[in-house]
């Protein structure tokens, strides 16, 4: 992506992801049954994505105490930025790979729900990688 792209994990980056996911033909085929509240933890920051029918229906930065969600993907900013490289190094190509081989990264919460929606979430993260981590 170009230097004008918003930088991960700013809200504008997630807004762009929302548009890309909504426009994706494959998500249109496979996402219909994917409903999940998914939080991305990036160092100390938290962003909650409300996924409905395979689309990002809501983006909640720093959800308050009244918010609940199913799954948290927790990593350092460095983990996420490495993951979002167009061609990531070994062990950073996939959320499951990072969960398995990157000690600072983990899948937390309702992990079975993550597995249940793996196909659609895998596509969402493929699209996120096409977006890249943005410029400084």
């Amino acid at each position: 992506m170009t230097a004008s792209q918003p930088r991960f994990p700013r809200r504008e980056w997630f807004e762009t992801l929302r548009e890309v996911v909504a426009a994706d033909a494959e998500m249109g085929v496979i996402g219909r049954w994917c409903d999940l509240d998914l939080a991305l933890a990036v160092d100390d920051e938290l962003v909650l994505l409300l996924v409905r029918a395979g689309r990002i229906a809501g983006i909640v930065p720093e959800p308050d105490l009244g918010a609940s969600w199913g799954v948290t993907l927790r990593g350092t900013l460095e983990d996420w930025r490495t993951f979002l490289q167009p061609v990531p190094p070994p062990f950073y190509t996939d959320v499951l790979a990072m969960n398995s081989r990157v000690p600072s990264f983990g899948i937390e919460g309702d992990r079975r729900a993550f597995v249940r929606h793996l196909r659609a979430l895998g596509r969402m993260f493929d699209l996120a990688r096409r977006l890249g981590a943005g410029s400084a």
Partner: protein
Amino acid sequence: MPEFDPITGRYVYLDTAGGRARVFFEEAGSGRPLVCLHTAGSDSRQYRHLMCDPEVTSRWRVLAFDLPHHGRSLPPEGWWEEEYLLTRDAYVGAVMAFVRAMGLERPVVLGCSMGGAVVLDLARLHGGEVGAVIGLEGASKIEGRFLDWSVMPDVDGSAVAASWTYGLMAPQSPEPSRREVWWTYSQGGPGIYRGDTYFYSVDWDLRGREGEIDTRRCPVYLLTGEYDYACTARESEATADAIPGAKFRKMEGIGHFPMAENYPRFREYLIPVLEELEQGETGLRNA
């Protein structure tokens, strides 16, 4: 004239520990036999590119069979009353039953993932009958892969097994090939991927016994993709280091399914091994 693939497929009957099995195999080429073993939960279609490579098939008779429960090899009668858990003995037995039934003389056995693991025990236990082994993405022990999610009723085991293994591939591998791996994985029977991982993640453990392999009798080659996170190149290298005479190479820009996800890249590593084996065989004949 119709355009044919050079691969032909048919069935052979094998006597295995699970009973008499009608097993599907594909083959192409002529020459020294090269028997190819598919990965957990998949089938022999993974080797279709290798079987269409004239540089290989002009000198090798390439054969790949579907283990019972996989691809076009049906499970034995009574499968519905028995949890499928592949053991080392059953796996080694099935491979040797195929080798013997087909009358293959000192074949080279090439296996990937669980196939890359079992070839080490084929070398250890049947080094007289097996001429050499090439293990892809194999090591003395692969931990943490035997999991229950694929048989949970709220999980679509076919799609999830395919998506679970999709991430094992290198991002550089061509997308159509990676999608094909996804497709073939989605066609495994319920619980079969899980039951296969039982072999290499629970039942089998070569650690401490690597030295029992005599590579003068049965040469051992281990090739592992740098992007494989289930069996890392470092793990395969450690296994090769523990087997006197074994050879190891890390494959750059390749993941867990070399022959299927990026055959053009994989053959850069495979062809030199096959050539070395051919030279070794010539040397043995002339000795």
